[in-house]
Each structure stands twice: as structure tokens, then as C-alpha cells.
């Protein structure tokens, strides 16, 4: 055995000391990834601190229909020509002051004067045309192009500095609504590459984006509208709801998005509808779901009142159709399916007597963590369908797998499928719902009906009252004759709001949090 010499001991002791010192040093500086921190912690009275559910992947304005991007960008950094009022559904002027249909396929917009972009470039009809062209007609592959316009290209022309005409390939009565999704960016913006930090006309300009940590917007002092109240806006993101809620209750943030009642937000939580509806969607060409009696029976078997009152007591509403009130085309006369187990059972018996294989296992794909208590909901649904004699297998899947079931081409080799879908109509018009879920060949419609197709194809071309009535009829027809869906509930989410700020959330808060609508309390 060899004992250590005193010198070695001393050098080891100093090595340990150095080690501890270096830890202390490491711990005292900030996290490697966060770079300079400035004096932002705690914030001044004029900094609004928002905590999101995730970091925006990009702030590219032509991807702003993506929730995680749009919540920061839309109507805050950049603005569209017209803006939809989420409460009334009306279109309101923003960068365009008025608009009218000037031909079957042509719309004309009067462009607001005296507006400049955050980089000093003046805004005019040319600039508006550039942005629309970039988002809709370019090769960028903008998300908004797929979301709103499909393969259709628009012809945009600035006839003079304040007049813009837009020509569509087919008559389009809701073109202004569609254009409310196009955020106008500076003509200096590249149209061959995505731009992560856009320059717009909005009340706040992008300041510093510390990737992974924090995003700061600064007040645009040259904003054309009412002067913004906060000198800056600081966005952070936390994936855990409990942590977002804790940031509000501990005073670290002013607004927290995407909370649910379990997150411990207490009195600081404000519940609001988010235009999302949950439903079961049937693969109506596979036995036994190809028999309308089975689809009706499932609708009778679901205890919607019970589900809402036990799982979602904070404002969710029992649903009779796939869109909530406030969307053009909502049919207020439709009553939710009544909960009637006996009727459901007799429908199943009747079908069975006619030789329908009612024992066939029905797959119910449910997406993990899609919304609060989704797995509990799946269990409840399975139980309720089992109660009327159907054989349902609950299948919990992740997002990508869920999309395989959700989108055309559909899964056809797993037998009958009744999948739990969550549909959000953020555009405000039933067209974005029925052409997806009810029209034969729709990307999310597993089957259709010629009569329904006709109604839908006519509704598309109508405006005003006629349009409203036509979509109402389509929903009623689907309910009566097709039953492709079992609507369950219109959802609500919760927002955490610190005492020092005032804000009235609305159905589009999660998609575009308009900072100009937030103010200091008192």
C-alpha cells in the first residue's frame, strides 16, 4: 500500500477547489443558449409578458395560419387588408379601407393611405399585390396557400397607388374573408426564400429573438393606428400547462395561453370558446358502419350532456354540428342528438336482424394529448358504444399516426373506423368545414352523398343570407340523411390573465393574440 505524499494531497485539494470554483462560475453565468439577458427579468410596467405553449417555429408571415406562428405575428407584427371580427363574424377594414365585388370574378380594394412598413418602406397597392402574389402564386409553398387557396392562383394588380384588383379563376363570394389570412409584408421581403423575421405594418416590430429562450417585440412608433400601449412584448414558451399557470400566479407573466382547469390557474383563469368541435367520424363504407342505422345508433348512444358536465364543465357546449355558433352557416335549429340507449339498442337489433355484422370490431383511433382529458373521453365513448352492443377497440396514437387515419387516402385495411376528430374552423365560414368533412372526395370526408354534394356545391357560390341558409340546409341534410359524423361538443380553453392587465379573449385568441387589444388594468 502506498500512502499519498503531502504534495500530491495538496495538489489534489487544489484541484477539487478549482473544480468547485468552476461550478460556481458556471452556475453564476446564464445558460449557454440564452446569450445576453438584458434587464428584462421582472419587466417594467410597460412590458407585456406572454407565455405560449411552444416556441414559434418561424415568424414567416405566409405561414401565419399556423397557430404557433400566427399567435405572435397576425395583426401584431403584420396586418392583412381586412380583418375578421371573431365575435361578430364581420369583416372590418385594416390595410384596405373598403372593398367591393366589381365583376363575377373580380374584387376591388381601396388601399389605406399614409401607412409605412416598419423598415420605412411606404405601403401601397403595389406592396399589397406583392404580398398576395408571394403567398398565393409563388413557389415558396406557403402554408396559407394550401390552407385557403388550394391550387387556384389569383391575379392581383395594382391599378393605381391606392386601388387593388384581385381576379379569381372562379366566382368567389368570400374572397375578402380569404384575403384576411394574407399578412402584408414589406416589398423588400424575399419571394424565393422563407423569411423567419418578417417586416410588416403592425403595431409591434420584431426586436430580438433569442432562439430557445425568448422573443421580444418593440413598439412601432410610426404605427398608423392608435398608439400601442406597451413599449415591448416579451414572449416565452413552456410546454407544461402547470408551469404556464404557475408563471401567472407567481407574477412572472401577464398572459398564459392554452390552459385547462387542472393546471391550477384558479381565479386568474378565463375560459373562452376556441371554435374547435370534437366528433366521431365514421368510415361509412365498411360494415357495420356502412349501415346508417348503426351510425344513428352511435349518435343516440353518446351521453353528450354527461360527457360535458363530467369531463369539460368549464364552458364546453354539447354539439349538434361540426361548427359552433358565430361561424357563417351555423344551423341554430339543429338539436343535439338525444341520449337514448333503448333507441340505439333497437336500431342495432334491427340492423342485426337484417344481417348487418354488428359484432365486427370497430377501431376508434384517438390522438394522445390532443386536448385535455382526451384519453378519458375515449374510454367513455368506448364504454357507451359497448353498452349498445358494439365492439369497439380504443387505439391511442400519436399525431402522425392520427393523420394517417384523418386524411385521404384513408386507412382501408383495418376494418370499420370511428375516429375521434377535433375540427377547428378558424376561417369563420362553413365552406372550410363542409368541403373537408362532408363533400364526396373531401380530404377529410370518408364518404359522401350525391344530394349533399349538390347542396354544398351550390352553397359555395352564394353570398349573404342565401349562403347562410344554404349551409344550414347542408348541415340539416347531413344530420337527417347521411350521418357521417357524431358531433360531441364545442370546446373551450382557458387563458391565464394577471391582475395588472385587461384582455377579453375571443374565439381566435389562440390563433392571433392581438396585442393591441390588451391594456393595463386600472
Amino acid at each position: 500500500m502506498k500512502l499519498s505524499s503531502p504534495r500530491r494531497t495538496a495538489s489534489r485539494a487544489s484541484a477539487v477547489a478549482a473544480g468547485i470554483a468552476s461550478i460556481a462560475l458556471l452556475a453564476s453565468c446564464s445558460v449557454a443558449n440564452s446569450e445576453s439577458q438584458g434587464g428584462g427579468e421582472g419587466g417594467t410596467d410597460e412590458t407585456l409578458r406572454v407565455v405560449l405553449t411552444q416556441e414559434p417555429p418561424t415568424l414567416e408571415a405566409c405561414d401565419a395560419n399556423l397557430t404557433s406562428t400566427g399567435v405572435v405575428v397576425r395583426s401584431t407584427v403584420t396586418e392583412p387588408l381586412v380583418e375578421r371580427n371573431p365575435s361578430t363574424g364581420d369583416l372590418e377594414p385594416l390595410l384596405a379601407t373598403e372593398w367591393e365585388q366589381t365583376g363575377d370574378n373580380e374584387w376591388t380594394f381601396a388601399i389605406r393611405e399614409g401607412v409605412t412598413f416598419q423598415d420605412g418602406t411606404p405601403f401601397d397597392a403595389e406592396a399589397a399585390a406583392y404580398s398576395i402574389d408571394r403567398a398565393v402564386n409563388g413557389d415558396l409553398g406557403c402554408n396559407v396557400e394550401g390552407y385557403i387557396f388550394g391550387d387556384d392562383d389569383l391575379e392581383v394588380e395594382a391599378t393605381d397607388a391606392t386601388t387593388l384588383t384581385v381576379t379569381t379563376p372562379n366566382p368567389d363570394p368570400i374572397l375578402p374573408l380569404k384575403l384576411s389570412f394574407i399578412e402584408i409584408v414589406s416589398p423588400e421581403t424575399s419571394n424565393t426564400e422563407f423569411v423567419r423575421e418578417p417586416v410588416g405594418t403592425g403595431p409591434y416590430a420584431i426586436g430580438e429573438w433569442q432562439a430557445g429562450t425568448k422573443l421580444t417585440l418593440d413598439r412601432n412608433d410610426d404605427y398608423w393606428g392608435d398608439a400601442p400601449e406597451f413599449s415591448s412584448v416579451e414572449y416565452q414558451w413552456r410546454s407544461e400547462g402547470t408551469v404556464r399557470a404557475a408563471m401567472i400566479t407567481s407574477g412572472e407573466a401577464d398572459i398564459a395561453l392554452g390552459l385547462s382547469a387542472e393546471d391550477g390557474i384558479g381565479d386568474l383563469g378565463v375560459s373562452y370558446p376556441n371554435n374547435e368541435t370534437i366528433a366521431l367520424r365514421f368510415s361509412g363504407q365498411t360494415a357495420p358502419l356502412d349501415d346508417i342505422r348503426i351510425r344513428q345508433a352511435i349518435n343516440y348512444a353518446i351521453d353528450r350532456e354527461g360527457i360535458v358536465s363530467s369531463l369539460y364543465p368549464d364552458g364546453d357546449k354539447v354539439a349538434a354540428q361540426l361548427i359552433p355558433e358565430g361561424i357563417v352557416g351555423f344551423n341554430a335549429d339543429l338539436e343535439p342528438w338525444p341520449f337514448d340507449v333503448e333507441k340505439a339498442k333497437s336500431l342495432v337489433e334491427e340492423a342485426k336482424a337484417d344481417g348487418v355484422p354488428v359484432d365486427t370490431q370497430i377501431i376508434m383511433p384517438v390522438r394522445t394529448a390532443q386536448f385535455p382529458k382526451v384519453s378519458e373521453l375515449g374510454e367513455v365513448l368506448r364504454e357507451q358504444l359497448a353498452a349498445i352492443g358494439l365492439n369497439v377497440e380504443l387505439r391511442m396514437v400519436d399525431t402522425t399516426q392520427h393523420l394517417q387515419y384523418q386524411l385521404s387516402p384513408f386507412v382501408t385495411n383495418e376494418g370499420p373506423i370511428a375516429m375521434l376528430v377535433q375540427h377547428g374552423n378558424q376561417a369563420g365560414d362553413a365552406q372550410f368545414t363542409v368541403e373537408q368533412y362532408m363533400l364526396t372526395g373531401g380530404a377529410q370526408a370518408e364518404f359522401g352523398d350525391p344530394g349533399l354534394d349538390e347542396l354544398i356545391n351550390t352553397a359555395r357560390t352564394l353570398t349573404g343570407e342565401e349562403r347562410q341558409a344554404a349551409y344550414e340546409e347542408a348541415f340539416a341534410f347531413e344530420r337527417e340523411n347521411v350521418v357521417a359524423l357524431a358531433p360531441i361538443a364545442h370546446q373551450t380553453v382557458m387563458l391565464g390573465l394577471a391582475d395588472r392587465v385587461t384582455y377579453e379573449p375571443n374565439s381566435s385568441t389562440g390563433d392571433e393574440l392581438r396585442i393591441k387589444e390588451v391594456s393595463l388594468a386600472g
Partner: protein
Amino acid sequence: MWTYLRRRILQSALPLIAVVLGVFVLARLTGDPSKLYLPLNATDQMREDFAARNGFDKPIWEQMGDYFLGVLRLDFGESLRTGEPAAEMALRAFPATLQLAAVTMVLAIIVAVVLGSWASLKPNGIADRIVSFFSMTAASVPDFWIAILGIWIFAITLGWLPTSGTSGPLVWILPIATLMLRPVGVLAQVVRGSMVTVLGQPYIKVARSRGAGEMHIVTKHALRNAAAPALTVAGDLAVGLVNGAVVVESIFGWPGIGKLMIDSILQRDFAVLQAAVLITALAIFALNIIIDLGYALLDPRVRPTAGTRARRRGPGAISDTKAEALTNV
């Protein structure tokens, strides 16, 4: 020494390529990213354009060839999600994880050595029972629960610490305390176990009979010989931390590699996933080499030789490696 290093690096290259290949293929088996990245109502034409723009329309072996050619030019591709270079994203996130792992491990080792030594002085004594109870609890409570409990107690109820985030020195406390628990629990038991063995050895009795103080015996004679198995276990725990502490990073908003990896898996962001796996694998290989070298430093009888995983053995095994080690000197 240099021969050893060279050999280890060459040996590491093959598994490294295998890891990246595996991730490349497996990630692509899990689903079509166009469904995630395009709106639900995108047309077929748009899906085709998307695939063509990102090279997903080519056969997988061709995609793989392109990827490895790119890697040779240090081009790791671009993120589907953000459009940023994948390597940049991985390199930005990795230091945050490394800092967290390093501070956690050093503190965990210090605490575990103190606790383990204390417990070993009197096996089954009161100190031993307390330490055992603590380490069992620490090693078995879920991170998630402890993290949320910590936030609730220290940030909400007491208001002493920030809930999460990255600014200021205080934000380090909760994540590190959460992360430390398991390593401290496991290591304290390992240190205790090997200390009990070592303290029963004849040479300790000799030292005691010569009148050496207990403190002197523990720190000067026993700990050094008991350190080897602890280092082995600490190495494995450190590898786990470098891999990214996903739960802790997610909860505390720590911009590390674990969170980045999970996000890129969920988002089918292949290039970023590959870059993150590659950088983590590199770090783990480096860490393993460092641990082997550290083992040799602790026990001069062991000289690192490629192929000998001496550090994997417990204290009783040292004598077995002696002959082998001597022949390799």
C-alpha cells in the same frame, strides 16, 4: 496512450455511422411529414411539391447517399420546421444541456460521496438507515412530480425562486435539484457499498491498529480504493444526462438538446433529429474515453487498452485485471 486514443476513435466511427443510419431509416418509417407540415386540406399537388422540395420523393437509399455526402461537407441539412440549418440548432442547444449535466454530476458526486461514506461507517446504524431511506426515495420518485412539486413550493408558495426560464443564477436551482436526486440516490448506495467492502479490508485494520483517526482512514485510505465502482456508475449516469434531460428541460423551459430531440421526433424534423443524435453520440463517445482515462488515473494498475473495459468491473475484480493490465503496460 496515443495508440489507445487512436484506436478508440477508429472503433467509435463505426457505431457512430450505424447510429445515424439507424435514426435516418427509423425516423422515415414513422410517417410522412407532409401530412404534418401541410394544412389538412392541402391538395395532392401541394403534397407532391413538398416532397420534391425536401427530397422525400427519392428512394430512401438515394436520400441517404445525399445526406452522407452533405455530412462530409459539414452540411447537415435544414430543419423542416424552422428552415434553419440543422447543425446550428443542435449546436445551439447542446451547451445548455452540457452545462446542466456537468453541474448536476459534480454536485451529485460530492453529495453522494459524503452521504455514502457517512452511511458506511456503521453499517445498519442510524446514519446508514437514514441515507438508505433517502437514496431509495430519491432514486424512485419521478422527475416530473418532483419538478412540479418544487415549482409549487419554492416558486408559488414561498416565492423564493423563479418557476422556470434561463435568466439569472436562481433559475439553476430547481432544475439541478430535480436532476441531482436520482444520481445522488444511486451513487450514495454505490459509494456506501464499496466503502463497506474496503473498510473491512486488512489494510484498514492495520491503519486503525496504528492509531490513525477515522477521518484520516476514510478520506486517505478507503475512499480512493472505493472510488472505482462509483466512477463507473457515475459515468453511466452522466451519459444519461448528456442525452438530454427531456422532462426537466421541458418543464423548466431549458433550451437543451433533449427537448430539441423530442420536438424533432414529434415533428418528424429528420435533419434536426439526425444532427442532434450525431452530436450527442459524439459527446457520449468522448465521455466514455474520459471515464476510461479517469479510471486509469484512480488506479495506476489499470492502463487503458482498447478492448479492455476495465472500468466496468467492481473493486473485487481489480486484482483479476492486474495481470492483464501489467502485460499491456
